[in-house]
């Protein structure tokens, strides 16, 4: 079966037919720009084993590879609690393709925690296609006080970093949590590389030899390693449709509620499908008469949404086919010209004071990283 359109993340229905068609077109352009055949984007390495699934008939041996990792930033895991939880509340530090925030009551107790894996690029497209729908989504998801002017600048462009997004984690805004980052990572990882005649198999080596990624995250090295392993088997690789980062399981074993209710029942997917959840909330229904902070994890009350993130998985699904049919010609090791990930100090910021980039801008930016 040939895929006639690249779906929007989570099979969302926010946008019009025209908007979804445009998304498919733009995403295909982003994917194909990474192959290295487009004369507008003469990449440093042809990526003959990467493809866009649009219009492709998958071979019989097509298989998916689910890559799962923890939402909590790896770089903070060695800190003691509660410091690591509070540090991780900073959206700048939420660099594992998942972001969160929480609302509190007057006593500082958590009432709702929001988790999202949605890309800013999608919201740009959404705002362009259906601004009223965007406003309605913000109002139903974060606050009824949201006004369109909070979301759309006078120029007509979407304000990705707006106060409601900061308060309610409507979509991701950390500078590396972008669609293009995921696509470029997968594309770069599809290149089999060698150093001193030895084929590289470790993410750490691949990152030193041409893949723009941060080895100190959970997500980047995992994606690099798993995609490259498929490529080494002579397969064509891409990201599975619908391309997106998705929430995985929330492990609630050991969580204790004041009334013995199953804490899992307080986890509610609010965007996407059960198979492709993009956004979820953790909140205690009013009839229970207590807050999230009254729930304990291993005896510790939930004082930060980061504690929930520590039990949350995130996933990305790769797709490969035609195993053994793509000639594997290892590329030489190239030192990355641009270090991946945040600088070592804490001075980096959300995606700039300017607005978060749209998919169009991401395509252009993605081409520059190659």
């Amino acid at each position: 079966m040939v895929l006639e359109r690249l779906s929007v993340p989570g099979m969302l229905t926010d946008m019009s037919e025209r908007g979804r068609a445009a998304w498919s077109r733009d995403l295909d352009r982003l994917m194909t720009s990474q192959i290295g055949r487009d004369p507008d984007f003469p990449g440093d390495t042809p990526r003959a084993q990467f493809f866009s699934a649009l219009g492709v008939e998958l071979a019989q041996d097509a298989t998916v590879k689910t890559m799962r990792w923890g939402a909590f930033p790896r770089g903070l895991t060695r800190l003691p609690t509660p410091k690591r939880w509070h540090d991780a509340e900073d959206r700048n530090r939420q660099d594992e393709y998942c972001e969160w925030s929480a609302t509190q009551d007057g006593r500082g107790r958590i009432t709702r925690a929001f988790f999202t894996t949605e890309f800013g690029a999608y919201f740009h497209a959404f705002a362009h296609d259906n601004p009223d729908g965007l406003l309605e989504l913000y109002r139903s998801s974060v606050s009824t006080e949201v006004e369109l002017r909070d979301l759309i600048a006078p120029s007509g462009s979407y304000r990705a970093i707006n106060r409601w997004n900061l308060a309610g984690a409507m979509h991701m805004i950390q500078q590396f949590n972008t669609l293009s980052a995921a696509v470029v990572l997968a594309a770069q990882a599809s290149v089999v590389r060698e150093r001193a005649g030895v084929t590289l198999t470790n993410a750490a080596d691949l990152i030193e030899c041409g893949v723009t990624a941060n080895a100190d995250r959970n997500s980047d090295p995992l994606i690099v390693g798993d995609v490259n392993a498929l490529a080494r088997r002579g397969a064509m690789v891409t990201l599975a449709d619908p391309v997106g980062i998705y929430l995985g399981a929330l492990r609630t074993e050991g969580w204790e509620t004041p009334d013995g209710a199953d804490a899992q029942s307080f986890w509610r997917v609010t965007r996407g499908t059960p198979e492709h959840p993009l956004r979820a909330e953790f909140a205690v229904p009013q009839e229970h008469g207590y807050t999230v902070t009254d729930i304990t994890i291993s005896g510790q009350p939930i004082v930060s949404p980061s504690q929930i993130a520590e039990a949350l998985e995130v996933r990305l699904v790769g797709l490969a086919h035609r195993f053994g049919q793509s000639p594997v010609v290892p590329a030489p090791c190239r030192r990355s010209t641009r270090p991946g990930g945040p600088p070592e100090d804490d001075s980096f910021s959300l995606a700039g004071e300017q607005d978060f980039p749209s998919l169009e801008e991401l395509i252009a930016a993605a081409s520059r990283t190659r």
Partner: protein
Amino acid sequence: MFPSRLLDLAADEMAAGPTFDPQRINQHIEGRVNGQRIMSDAEIESLLNDPFALLVLRRGRFPTNLTELLAALDEHNDSSHGLPDTTSFLVSEGGQIPFQPGVGKGGSRLLIVRTRRDRSTGADLMISVLTPPDTSPRSSTLLLEVLAWDPVNRTFHFYQRQQGAWFWCGQSDMAFDDDARGHGPFDSHINGYPNMKELKFPWVHWHGPTLAISENAYAPDDPLVSDPLFLDRSPANLFEDLIMVLVDRWNEARFDKAVAGHPTMSPTNTWLRQVVDSTSFGLISSGVRFATLPDRDLNDVPATFFVDQDCLIDGAGAALPVRPPALRLSGSRYAGLVQKYDLRLRGRGIDIQGDVPFCFTVPERAREDVVVVRLLIAKGVMSRRLAACLLMVDFANPMFSATRASLLRHLPDGSRLEAGASLDEVLVERITRAASASPPGSAERQFVQNWELGPSDWPTTFADRIDRYLEAVASRLQTDDGSDEIFRLAESRRRMARRIPLLEFDLTLPIAAGIPGDAPPLEMTEEGTIRVRGEAIN
């Protein structure tokens, strides 16, 4: 996570009649007299209510290999009690050493975890297969081990297939039985907990996000590398998440059984020894790969090697307001020490100079000891202050402190755990009484000095001491002498860890061949200097 030693099935050869039957569930409790026999139906029904027993063995299915075992489980995938979700993991001490014909480096352990479809709870069943080179993990000749949770009896059961028969080798509770403790599964599951020595980033020796165990570690035609469980293996960080939940699961069950008066689990000393002593250990490393030396510096020398961060500083422990400094060691200095002390990977046909894949791999407090400290505080068995005063005795040696462990003798005979009953009163009174007759610097005198800080000043005073100590360590890591001493201390603690059966394979840790085998063990001082262990008191 499993011991991979064979059961001593010959031990009961003198017993009358057959002691095992391939078509029955057999019992073999290592260390127990007459511990091997065919189990009766009544025993099976009351003892074995885990998914492996319920879905497989009790239905008369006795799988002879991994394929059959997985197929037997798959038959229940659509039922409410089925475990359809399969995740595989791989650990191999030689996993970062490329294959070379004729060079043996031991096998690989494949772990298969089965969970419910939504994975909202931890694992209920784990399978371990130790796979030698050039062998399919599905071979009937391999040792198959199963760990499974029994929700009725609230315990983990340990099973093993050997000589064509399945044996129940015991349950977590038996880790505290005099005859079974330290034997069979309990030589590694020392207190009955599931374990993962390399629990934290960078999960040295595991297939992980940064360092994969890839096909180039094996012969091109090794059946393992084409097995779907290898091809779809998951990174170790996901196994860490699973193990953390399972450790807590047994900890809670164990505590409930103890306060209910369980004969072998309620004695307080079985709990307190996990507070003041090191009954087990974990392994922690810098995230810097040895292969990148000397270009990369070790900017993340593990703090838990120097102080019990998980129990003293973490909010779930004593919550001391410590501000740990970054502990850094230059890559060239570490590489120089590797040369100077001839650090080597030695064992299983390998003898090469160098470190394990990640630098500065050292023992740290085992997760199962950490959760005990936290649970005893949370349940009111001891106050934060008591925990802190105990752990601040010889605090510069978070592992293997004979000084701190000696405090265990002050528990009254016959003391039993009670929920909410603070140990403070009895322990403080008895240690204080013993202190006057003990020499300067003794554990008792240190404890009394700590306790006398009073109910309000102890957190800041302890935190100040740790801050000063860690600053001294950070400074010493920047000097030749200091880093040399700390390197030798690391080797000394690794040698102590090697004595615990949990450390199964020679290649798990490097050995500093340049330090004599009979070199006396070392310990750290509060000033950040190193001395021979026990020197201060002797």
